[in-house]
């Protein structure tokens, strides 16, 4: 079993989108809820969430042993990760099939990226090359 990150990328400005009706919103939510139930039933869902806008981000770095904070995201980009799922899947084909379902439910492109290791580093040590 492998784990994959399914991330949703959105443009910074949301205002290009047409306002959607409450009915459309309900339909959208129903679709996502049904999909997540399907993920749960098959043991696929590991974690997921929607991120706040990058405006809410803070970067912390160490300069000369001092921690410095800056307001805003690490990279100022037109696109950013708006949300993601982490799923269990046997292989890429299985992960891509879930990604296709997510694309249908949320009507946005999804990036599928494999984890090379998951969990706590202490638990991963025995899997590492040369260990």
């Amino acid at each position: 079993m492998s784990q994959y990150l399914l991330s949703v990328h959105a443009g910074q400005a949301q205002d290009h989108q047409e306002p959607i009706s409450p009915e459309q919103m309900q339909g959208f939510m129903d679709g996502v809820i049904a999909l997540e139930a399907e993920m749960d039933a098959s043991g696929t869902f590991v974690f997921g969430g929607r991120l706040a806008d990058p405006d809410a981000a803070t970067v912390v770095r160490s300069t000369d042993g001092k921690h410095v904070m800056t307001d805003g995201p690490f990279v100022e980009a037109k696109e950013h990760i708006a949300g993601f799922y982490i799923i269990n899947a046997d292989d890429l084909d299985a992960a891509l099939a879930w990604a296709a379902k997510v694309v249908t439910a949320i009507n946005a492109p999804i990036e599928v990226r494999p984890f090379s290791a998951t969990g706590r580093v202490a638990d991963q040590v025995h899997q590492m090359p040369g260990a």
Partner: protein
Amino acid sequence: MTRFVAADGEATEVERVFREVYGQAVATLVRVFGDITLAEDAVQHAFTVASDRWRSDGIPPNPAGWIVTTARNRAIDDLRRSARGRELHEQLSVGARTSHGPAVDDSDENGPMRDDQLRLIFTCCHPALRTEHQVALTLRLLGGLSVEEVARAFLVSEAAMAKRLVRAKYKIKAAKIPYRVPAVANLPDRLRSVLLVVYLIYTTGGDDPERAPLRSEAIRLGRALVEMMPDEPEAAGLLALMLLSESRVPARTAEGAIVVLRDQDRTKWDRTSIEEGHRIVRACIRLDRPGPFQLQAAIQAVHCAAGSFEATDWRQIVALYDQLFVVMPTPVVSLNRAIAIGEIEGPEAALTVLDAIAADLDGYHLMHATRGAMLRRLGRRVAARAAYERAANLATVEADQRFLAQQIEQLTEGGDPMQQPADRPLGPPSERRPS
């Protein structure tokens, strides 16, 4: 992979066998160990051992089985020596890695080995890999071409090609692209990408003598696919398309320039390939499950059946292009249809069709060459020359450039404009790049 300088006849024979069994051996080792790089290294080692032993003892009756057994033993030794390997070895012995288990079939039965190759070609041509990586992997792993040979075929440096292959193999491993024949529901789409890769290898072989070995490699892969999937008419269609195109190669160039279909010496066409191509096309028609490759093959079959250019059944060809356009609505298909229309309804009608696709194919030399041919037939020599010049600027293959230079020269010097109307602007061609 190791190349042998043909010091004697035996060395050449050994090399031929290597080329033949490389893909089989790598595919089987990938099934057993689930790791492409490990499989390649082990097969490479087995070839090195074989090159000494076979030259003194002769080639064994089942060379593929010999290579697989030797490579497997080497791989197991390698695994035992490394920690990473110990873990992989553990996984293998509990059968966790694959549902097929770690058994190697090295009997001389070809079935299981064929299945291994089929699985590997679907991995190499997985849609999650970019096309140029699919092509490079297929040529390297299944065709057994050296990195240097693959690099030369795609006009990139050996270092760049090596990097491309490393990246592609990394993705297969890291993203866990599966090693199996896709489920029935996905098979048509996935098969299409495999067939396109093989056809791309064929067309890359094109008219460039340097890259000609790619064409025979593509035909070899095409035959293997038909053997592996005898019930897939599109696989058969691709093989027929390649065979029929190949049959005209001997007549396609003269003094380094392309010879258009109208002017080809049809006695130079290879009858054996034509007969085989025709046989496959007839079998496909009986199955009645048409698809883009079968239709393209059928079009080539009509051309190959004509005793002369004038005897070509153009109505049949237009009808087939109409069918092809339904399943493959690309401007290149329209372009070829326009050429056939020009034969039935004349150059004016062809130009009308061309006008509709001119913008889409503005960067495609064959579109401008076709325009040039039609304009020339109408006696519009200045416009024809301009179109040929545009084509010449876009053409990349030397034989095409020479042909186009000839046309420009004829239109510059004067002479009878109707004397050499190049209807098939450049070779059979047609569907050189179906995209």
